[in-house]
């Protein structure tokens, strides 16, 4: 978050921005926080911290610009700096390897999937949610931002502090992983996949 103070809002202007530009996004913010933390109390704390920071730094927000992306960026940074740290799960992976993998823009677009469109359409909300939730947080995040929240690649690049090329490649990897999860669900639930024919 840029903390350069661009504005000096009056108290009334601050309240207007907070009520009319920040609060309407609380539903998306809470769902994003829950999908990051999987815990209702942590999600509540994360959203509350985000809104308090947003108010504290409101002078660095330009009224009428993209409040949702600005808020999501604060929430994502709070999650990384505060909540991820206290996660009970110890790191099980080689971060250098993961970093290289996540950020590499050299991605194979030719991987195909035998998942069927009809199987996807027949799936229940919980199955879709569980598949999404089973992805590593960085992959889960790009799918949430793009497909659930409708952010553009440029907005995602700003929210995540990564280049647009990395957004694109990470999203593609995330979608391949999600297709694999959905394919497993489809097979377990007895839906058709080409492989069974």
């Amino acid at each position, binding site marked *: 978050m840029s903390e350069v103070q661009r504005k000096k809002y009056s*108290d009334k202007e601050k309240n207007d921005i*907070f009520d009319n530009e920040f*609060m309407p996004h*609380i*539903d998306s913010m*809470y*769902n994003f926080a*829950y999908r990051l933390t999987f815990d*209702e109390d942590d*999600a*509540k704390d994360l*959203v*509350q911290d985000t*809104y*308090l920071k947003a*108010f*504290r730094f409101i002078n660095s927000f330009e009224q009428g610009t993209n409040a949702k992306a600005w808020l999501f960026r604060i929430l994502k940074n709070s999650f990384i700096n505060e909540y991820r740290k206290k996660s009970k799960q110890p790191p099980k992976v080689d971060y250098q390897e993961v970093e290289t993998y996540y950020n590499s823009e050299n991605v*194979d*677009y*030719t991987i*195909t*999937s*035998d*998942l*069927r*469109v009809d199987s*996807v*359409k027949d*799936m*229940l*909300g*919980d199955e*879709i*949610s569980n598949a*999404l939730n089973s992805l590593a947080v960085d992959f889960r995040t790009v*799918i949430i931002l*793009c*497909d*659930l929240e*409708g952010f*553009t*690649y440029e907005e995602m690049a700003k929210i995540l502090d990564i280049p647009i090329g990395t957004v*694109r490649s990470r*999203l*593609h990897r995330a*979608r391949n992983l*999600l*297709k694999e999860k*959905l394919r497993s669900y489809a097979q377990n639930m007895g839906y058709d996949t*080409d492989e069974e*024919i």
Partner: protein
Amino acid sequence: MEENNLETSGERKLNCGEMGKCFQLLESILDGEAMDEGKAVLDEKLAKCQPCFERYHLEQAIKEVLKTKCTKKAVPTELIMNIRSKIEEFK
């Protein structure tokens, strides 16, 4: 996979010579990121190339179910009240 496509492929070719490039473009188009020229290419790909046709519709279906079916949690009412009272304290 190709065998399964024989009956439904119509006049579409069953192999895509530039699959990597096409799939990347299809994803960009679905995400609303492609330039106008990309959209013109899309119509041709969907009409003439079976792997591109299948990929586009699969990605579209997944994007749609993510958007419409993912379970959403209602915002706890006390959260909004807590935020407002903390803001008042801050003021």
